[in-house]
């Protein structure tokens, strides 16, 4: 049951973008078309889950036994960056179709704070390996949900010529993001 609450909570209540404000850069940068937004979201799911597993192993099996917990930021960044590069190389060889659909998004996620953020949240909450994976999966699905919704709204906004010139593009995008965030606040408190 706990796992279900972690999963649902990370999608809606603690949505990584609307509640935690992590990963806002790709959220605004890659949300002009629904298709690319989907690609980005799927790539984030992939990387986030992999990173959660790797960082959990690194933290509990390498850093903690040696009493070097304070090195987590440094080593997490190293692990995530190396992991993404490695996955990219392997995908290119093994599954060119998946590589093509994720291709350009994978390097973009390397330094995405959402990936580091979720790993750190897993650690701070004291999640076990399974809970970490579930939290990572939920968070990344929350990201997919947020970016696809945003892209859908922005596609409509871009057609509208009634928007004042000074607000077109990114400014109206930021206002939209703020409004969506307020909407998502309606979920807060539903799951403790």
């Amino acid at each position, binding site marked *: 049951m706990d796992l279900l609450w972690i999963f649902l909570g990370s999608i809606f209540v603690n949505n990584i973008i609307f509640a935690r404000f992590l990963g806002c850069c790709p959220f605004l940068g890659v949300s002009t078309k629904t298709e690319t937004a989907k690609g980005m979201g799927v790539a984030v799911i992939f990387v986030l889950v992999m990173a959660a597993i790797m960082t959990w192993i*690194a933290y509990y099996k390498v850093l903690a036994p040696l009493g070097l917990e304070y090195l987590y930021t440094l080593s997490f960044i190293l*692990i995530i960056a190396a992991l993404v590069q490695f996955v990219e190389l392997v995908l290119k060889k093994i599954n060119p179709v998946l590589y093509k659909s994720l291709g350009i998004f994978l390097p973009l996620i390397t330094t995405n704070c959402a990936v580091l953020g979720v790993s750190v949240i897993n650690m701070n909450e004291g999640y076990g390996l399974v809970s970490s994976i579930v939290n990572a999966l939920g968070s990344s699905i929350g990201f997919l949900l947020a970016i696809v919704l945003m892209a859908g709204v922005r596609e409509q906004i871009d*057609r509208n010529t009634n928007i004042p010139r000074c607000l077109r593009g990114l400014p109206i995008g930021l206002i939209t993001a703020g409004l969506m965030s307020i909407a998502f606040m309606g979920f807060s408190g539903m799951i403790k």
Partner: protein
Amino acid sequence: MISFSGVFYPTVVMGVLGLVFGALLAFASIKFFVMTDERVSKIREILPGANCGGCGYPGCDGYSDGIVNGGAKTNLCAAGGPSLAEGIARIMGIEGEASVPKMAFLKCKGTPDISVRNARYDGIGDCRSAVIVPSGSPNSCPFGCVGLGTCAKVCSFGAISMAGGLALIDHNICVGCGACVSICPKAVLALVPVSSNIQVICGSKWKGPDVKRVCKAGCIGCGICARTCKAGAITVEGNLARIDPNRCTNCGDCAAKCPVKCIECVVLKDDEEKKIA
């Protein structure tokens, strides 16, 4: 106080981690090395780089990859024209096929004084949004140009401007990529061969009397052009005249006889051989 182990262990751990990942990536880059064809990057260099998608591939990168690995034809890039097709063929080491240069063409003459305006549209200023609304198009002809300029916005080359409620295509700039043709919700734009100078400037499939009610310059399907044409290039299908560009001799007889003047001589590009005196 700084202890020896307090400095030593972190240094070793981070060093080892870095080494392990470095070695892993070095190993992966050799083990999972993928040969890339250098012709792909060579073709990519000579393509225009506008990423208009007119070739049917996702951008110039996709097209260059498609030529080398997907067996795509060398003459699909409308923006580059025949000289580019030749260049690609040279890189690929094959005999190229000449491309027929095409251009976007608006099949509508419905300015406000010619076609009846039946509604004022104040919604989102985009043709794709306007056509969803019942009679959302200011133009009462359901086949006519909506005139909100979605094609002008989508043109990567800036060849389309809006004039008198119609899309005005600058044929000196248009490269025939077809981006406007695919985005137009009314399908009132078409790609036509540059060499054809006689065009039917209407897309209405309505019967004559219905056309007359909404537009002064719409094709009524009378068939005078088909009877006039000596080359037999014109047929009337579904109340609309259609000219076969392969048989049309650009004589202009049909344009002279057309009662509503929806067939016209238009010079798409200043091509001396094909120009009508």
